[in-house]
């Protein structure tokens, strides 16, 4: 069940990421054309691109994890016995789970801080807090994947 929802959320997150990168290309190109030919760059282009970037990338973390896209060194573990491999997977997925739970929790804290302080970007006054909350939401399926990996590896190690 957790596995299914993690996968589903990662697919939705990936579509948000795709929308984000298309917006980045569009804003950058409109800004270049506007600035070079009409002397009117997009107001706050840098701020828009920066904030869209954080959303696009963070929403793609789960899909990248699902597809095994994060770089790792694979040559040592593959040669070990099945039970040892499961124990190693238990350890690494637990560390990953701790890391992502911390990031999710602290992301909400960061969002609360931005909201309380009323922090916005300098030119077009985009508030930061929705992006900090989005950061936490986007990492939820990654933590779920780590949890599933941990449970599976534990079962395999002690079966």
């Amino acid at each position: 069940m957790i596995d299914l929802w993690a996968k589903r959320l990662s697919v939705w997150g990936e579509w948000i990421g795709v929308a984000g990168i298309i917006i980045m290309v569009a804003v950058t190109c409109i800004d270049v054309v506007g600035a070079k030919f009409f002397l009117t760059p997009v107001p706050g282009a840098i701020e828009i691109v920066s904030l869209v970037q954080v959303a696009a990338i963070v929403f793609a973390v789960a899909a990248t994890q699902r597809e095994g896209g994060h770089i790792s060194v694979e040559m040592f573990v593959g040669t070990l016995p099945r039970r040892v491999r499961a124990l190693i997977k238990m350890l690494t997925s637990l560390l990953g789970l701790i890391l992502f739970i911390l990031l999710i929790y602290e992301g909400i804290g960061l969002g609360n801080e931005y909201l309380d302080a009323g922090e916005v970007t300098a030119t077009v006054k985009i508030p930061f807090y929705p992006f900090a909350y989005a950061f936490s939401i986007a990492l939820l399926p990654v933590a779920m994947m780590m949890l599933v990996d941990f449970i599976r590896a534990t079962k395999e190690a002690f079966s």
Partner: protein
Amino acid sequence: MDPVIVGIVGILILLLLFALNMPVSFAMAFVGFAGFGYLVNWDAAVSLLIRDIFSQLSNYPLNVIVLFVLMGSFAFASGMSGRLYESAYKMSGKMPGGLAVATILACSGFAAICGSTAATVATIGRVALPEMQRFGYSQRLATGCIASAGVIGILIPPSTIFIVYGILTEQSIGSLFAAGIIPGVTLTLFFVMTVFILAMRNKDIAPRGKATTFVVKLKAMWRVADIFLLFALSIGGLFLGWYSPNQAAGVGAAGALLLGLIHRELSWQKFFRASKEGLRTACMIMMLIAGASVFGKFMAVTTIPANLSMWVSGLPLPPIGIMALICIMFFVGGCFLDAMALIMLTIPIIYPVILQLNYDPVWFGVVIVLISQIAVVTPPVGVNVYVTKGIALDVPIAKIFGGTFPFLVAMFILLIVVIVFPDMIMWLPNLLAV
């Protein structure tokens, strides 16, 4: 405990987690966080973790990576690799080892629109390998040539590793791009010469292809003129100061998309697939940067980079001897770690040493990128070799590694030339003043 000892323990734990198959970016973030928490305090470490990652991911200069990666994905989806190979084949097919030469030229051309070595190998390899097999090329030469030619991709701009190095060391990305051009072109020539020598020594390993007329050659060049126009518009515009690296990348991505639409190669399905693949690659790189940034903060509080810099400068060795040691370290590291991960892990530690030795950071960037790329075709990791193996399923991996050997010799010759004649690297960046 002494911060230096804590730092060394941290590095050892990090290497252990790498060996245990934990994703490199997550391992760097975790060890960086834990080490910082141990040395400073846990509240500061938690705050560092979230703020550093959030600020790296929303860092505008890093957007150049996302957009150049996307440009490469759109270029691939737009069928540019096929056109490039076909044109190169018509230009050089009749020469000794003509198809292998065409592969090298196509890799060099595709590199001008794609910043990744593995992507260049996968893209050109899929087109080139069946052709070389059809003409009876030896498996060793065909696969070795494909695996090695991808390396050119990282020297000719846009190059994702140069961008990351530029951001880590605060060097001009335009300068690094310009610095990569002459070694990239020289390496292309060295590889072509290698193929000539191999084909002349044993004509059976590389039979000649079909002859083509001058008109056919001219038409073949015309078919890829738009790809070079895209390069000129994106990278040329950057060199001429028309726009910033981010804008150059945005124009490049939109241009690659436009070319795909003009040539009717890009369906909605291909467009979304390319966008997703580009996004995932960009995400992998950005997470590596974020993880390396957290780890870098931990390294800074251990004082290892500063101490190492002082220790190295006190060694009874001439600067070139220290440089040789650094090169060996990068080569050995590159045999086990991905080039991008290696650079992110080591640059924050090694860079102060380079400054202390008064070496030019741009020149050093080219040297280490070249070394780390030599490592991508050497065992045991040899990413390019494994990508080639993915295309040539019937060829044993040892044969592909064997096939890269003559090209490795060419790469080492280039490395020596680059180290002995630094002016060769710096001439173009100085001329363009980027």
